[in-house]
């Protein structure tokens, strides 16, 4: 039975329904009397809404109603919130413009909704939407941060003069300046972290139902955190009371962060269901996903690193501009600050760091957390800088990293984070061996003979997962705690349900969480059912993002299991007439150690529920809950090496080898971990080579479909070589660190470093498309 516990490659329980088409997604929800919503969206990046005439549309076949932004205002529906308060250097609070779910007077990005048609069918709603006349007065738009910060630039929000949300800093400016003044060498780098569109396979969707008699709402929605959605919808948006709102996030087809946030469409669907007294469904199409799902990344940075004569880092100075788009999305403020700048120490001993981050409004889709959320931007900056430094200082890039690695733990960085454990040298050694680093010059020469340019790039990333100690994030401005909850219910027949506040939307929780329980009791994973995603079933929980569900969610289950086992042992001891301290749990039985006396779990469970023969004073039942609040972040880290070949005729980059060595602490299910790494690597490689959301100067999206926005396909990525080194995380009972984002965090810099190695210069930005690489090759030839 041990084979199904922690560390076993158990096939994913949930895959039977997914691969046979039996998953149940929001759009699969059918309710009698269902109506369909279609949003009317701004074609302009910036415009005043002068008027909306829906009179003709309201008379069209099948139309139930046309609801406009003004009605939201009249109903006192709250504006969207940003749940993390970040202050500027001067202590002033961030400057937030109001974001109504539909825009009553001004639209600020292409795709922002101004009205919604509710009709009997989706097609009738679309027909009627064409008959709604919206009069706009176009305003000048700013689509880039440079344009937004220029003097005399069009202003998005009166609350944010100069289009600046905040001008934030972390670290010690003076100490850092002093360190630079003593430097033997200073290496500097300008870089852009390209804007990405999350593109979860399932678009966002909502089915909202209002029960008039009970004054009760039910919302099925594509959420990574249904309880947070319920809290925000009730406490801030004033749509429904928390105890009168059930939020269900059923099977969800991918999130990557984009389904953390509570968006206008879901909120409007809920409000509309009461307004029209009919259930309302909205399912976004791919175009709406491109236009309205929160985008990711979009930084422009200047970074400088100071070294002493021994190539030891003396300090790091960073100035970053972060594009927030037109509005502050739910956790946007924290992404380029506390989730980014706190990781700028990388895997290295850096005595002092000073980082400034300016948040900027532009007339583009809002930007928020996307797989890695701030940490990919940090690792991209640090690792590009390390590679650049190695070349400038003429040191082997592996060696430069090694001489600066943190080797003593715990390690307090100058930017809040305290690394608990790690062995960065071990991961790098394993990666060097796997890639055959010594053989690279010969491979490069061979490629050259064949007319190809070969390059090798490193990335020694670190990230912070297990988000997060509630008190710590509270002190930094977070509006919520980031603990997790669990309840373990042993049924009278000995089967088990685990109710978790985590939410699985591709991560395989139904398998891994069951492995924890099964392993502890010595039973089959089939005896364990994981329940999640329904606020009526599950106690309040915080959801899944930031690679937190193993480190935080499973730790809560662990705590609840300890309580269940303690009670079960008492019952078993009583029934076996043994001492509680002598009871051990093996193969689904409670045994008296050193004897052949035993009682099976179902008999203990039955005894708990019949309550005929329990120890004096014991309550019946076998069900325990726990909340787990982590004491620290966890710090997954690893070494990635990418080897590329460039075709100089076309500029096409082929990844000929990719080695990933990760330290995730204890692995619950190595097969699922490898899958997570593969997916993350593909997304990071997508960012490096293919993906990039582009707007023209008027704020019109240029890449709003898969015809122009290049997602990685199977033949764009190599066969990854994935392995692990292990230091167990001391901060949680399972020793786990988290693996969901690492691939996306660590891979982009490895790819670009390999390309710059092959090019022989640094002038290339992501995505390194064939066209851009070819242009970079011409630059080099012109220089020669």
């Amino acid at each position, binding site marked *: 039975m041990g084979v199904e516990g922690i560390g076993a490659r158990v096939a994913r329980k949930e895959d039977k329904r997914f691969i046979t088409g039996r998953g149940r997604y929001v759009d699969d929800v059918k309710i009698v009397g269902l109506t369909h919503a279609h949003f009317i969206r701004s074609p302009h990046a910036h415009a005043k809404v002068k008027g909306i005439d829906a009179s003709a549309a309201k008379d069209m076949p099948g139309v139930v109603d046309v609801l406009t932004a003004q009605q939201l205002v009249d109903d006192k529906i709250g504006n969207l919130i940003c749940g993390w308060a970040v202050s500027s250097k001067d202590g002033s609070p961030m400057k937030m413009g109001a974001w109504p779910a539909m825009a009553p007077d001004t639209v600020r990005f292409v795709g922002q909704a101004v009205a919604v048609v509710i009709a009997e069918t989706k*097609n009738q709603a*679309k*027909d009627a939407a*064409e008959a709604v006349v919206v009069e706009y007065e176009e305003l000048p738009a700013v689509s880039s941060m440079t344009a937004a910060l220029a003097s005399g630039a069009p202003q998005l929000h009166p609350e944010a003069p100069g289009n600046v949300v905040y001008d934030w800093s972390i670290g010690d400016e003076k100490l850092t300046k002093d360190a630079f003044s003593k430097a033997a060498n200073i290496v500097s780098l300008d870089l852009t972290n390209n804007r990405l569109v999350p593109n979860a396979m399932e678009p966002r969707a909502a089915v909202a139902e209002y029960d008039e008699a009970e004054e009760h709402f039910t919302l099925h929605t594509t959420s990574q955190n249904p309880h947070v959605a319920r809290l925000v919808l009730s406490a801030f948006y004033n749509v429904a009371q928390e105890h009168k709102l059930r939020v269900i996030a059923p099977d969800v087809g991918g999130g990557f962060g984009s389904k953390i946030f509570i968006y206008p469409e879901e909120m409007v669907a809920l409000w509309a269901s009461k307004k029209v007294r009919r259930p309302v469904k909205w399912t976004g199409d791919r*175009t709406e996903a491109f236009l309205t799902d929160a985008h990711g990344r979009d930084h422009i940075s200047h970074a400088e690193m100071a070294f002493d004569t021994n190539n030891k880092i003396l300090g790091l100075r960073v100035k970053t501009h972060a594009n927030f788009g037109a509005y502050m999305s739910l956790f946007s403020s924290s992404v380029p600050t506390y989730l980014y700048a706190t990781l700028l120490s990388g895997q290295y001993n850096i005595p002092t760091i000073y980082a400034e981050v300016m948040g900027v409004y532009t007339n583009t889709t809002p930007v928020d957390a996307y797989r890695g959320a701030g940490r990919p931007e940090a690792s991209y900056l640090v690792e590009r800088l390390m590679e650049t430094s190695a070349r400038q200082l003429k040191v082997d890039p592996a060696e430069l990293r090694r001489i600066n690695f943190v080797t003593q733990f715990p390690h307090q960085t100058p930017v809040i984070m305290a690394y608990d454990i790690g062995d960065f040298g071990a991961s790098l050694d394993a990666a060097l061996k796997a890639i055959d680093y010594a053989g690279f010059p010969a491979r490069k020469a061979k490629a050259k003979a064949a007319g190809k340019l070969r390059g090798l790039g490193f990335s020694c990333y670190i990230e912070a997962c297990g988000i997060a100690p509630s008190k710590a994030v509270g002190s930094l401005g977070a509006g919520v705690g980031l603990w997790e909850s669990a309840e373990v219910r042993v049924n009278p027949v000995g089967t088990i349900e685990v109710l978790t506040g985590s939410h699985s939307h591709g991560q395989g929780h139904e398998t891994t969480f069951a492995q924890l329980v099964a392993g502890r009791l010595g039973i089959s994973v089939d005896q364990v059912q994981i329940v999640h995603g329904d606020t009526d079933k599950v106690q309040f929980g915080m959801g899944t993002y930031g690679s937190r569900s193993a480190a935080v969610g499973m730790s809560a289950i662990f705590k609840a299991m300890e309580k269940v086992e303690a009670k079960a042992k008492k019952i078993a001891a009583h029934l076996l007439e043994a001492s509680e301290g002598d009871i051990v749990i093996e193969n689904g039985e409670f045994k008296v150690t050193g004897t052949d006396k035993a009682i099976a779990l179902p008999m203990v469970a039955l005894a708990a529920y019949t309550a005929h023969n329990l120890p004096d004073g014991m309550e019946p039942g076998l069900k325990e809950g726990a909340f787990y609040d982590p004491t620290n972040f966890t710090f997954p880290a690893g070494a990635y090496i990418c080897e590329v070949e460039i075709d100089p*005729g*076309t*500029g*096409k980059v082929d990844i000929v080898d990719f080695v990933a060595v990760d330290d995730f602490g204890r692995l619950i299910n190595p097969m699922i971990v490898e899958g997570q790494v593969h997916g993350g690597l593909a997304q990071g490689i997508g960012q490096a*080579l*293919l993906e*990039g959301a*582009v707007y023209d100067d008027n704020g019109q999206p*240029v*890449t709003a479909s*898969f*015809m*122009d*926005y*290049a*997602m990685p396909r199977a033949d764009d990525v190599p066969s990854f070589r994935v392995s692990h080194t292990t230091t167990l995380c001391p901060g949680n009972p399972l020793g786990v660190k988290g693996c969901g984002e690492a691939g996306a965090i660590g891979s982009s810099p490895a790819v670009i470093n390999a390309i710059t190695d092959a090019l022989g210069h640094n002038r290339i930005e992501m995505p390194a*498309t*064939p*066209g851009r690489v*070819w*242009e970079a090759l011409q630059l080099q030839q012109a220089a020669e």
Partner: protein
Amino acid sequence: MYETTYHRPASIDEAAALFAKHPEAKYLAGGHTLIPVMKQRLAAPSDVIDLAKIKEMIGIEATSDALIIKAATTYYDITQSAAAKKAIPAIVYLTSVLGDPAVRYRGTIGGSIANNDPAADYPAAVLALGATIKTNTREIKGDDFFQGLFSTALEDNEIITSVSFPIPAKAGYAKMRHPASRFALTGVFVAQTKSGEVRVAATGASQNGVMRVPAIEAALKANWSAGALDGVKISADGLMSDIHGSAEYRANLIKVMAQRAVEAAG
């Protein structure tokens, strides 16, 4: 999608008669362009007349002089055709790198040529091989067929029934795929006819759709080898420039793809 009426005629004549009856109709072949555009409500044909199931429009035959591919033959069937492989392997190769498997099972050669997307692959083959387009009313020379972006010599009601490719002495195709769409960022088809004429056509590069490339034709006429193109300069004037490639990059690709196509042709 707006409401439309779908027809599945059994013959070319029946299809043409249906079209005559419904002036707002559109012919449907593989549907890779028309259906997405209809879904986006950017096209609203009253009637859709499906040509893909007309038996007399499906099939491949080769004579000693020509490879004749009927218009509703799918890409997949072309990639599997022994006759096509033997007659003009470059056409089979071109088809094998067109789109992805799902596209190849559904798309048809007639639909691609009639649509004349400026980055489609087949127009390059038609132009370089000097193919003849046969319709339900006439024959049109490949040289006269393509008339700029999404524009052809076809009348509204006219149906391509087959394409006849003269069998060349040598032919090759090379394509740089568009990273997102997998259309040709630039594709070049090179051919040497049995009479020694050299014809080269590039797709995906020009602002006006598929085009001949005289500079490359001249160089290859003098010396049929990839090396003969080393010194050739292709002007970037009139070439497309977008986020996936500048006009200069596409000019470079015309030369590089031509060289690779020559190498493939042997």
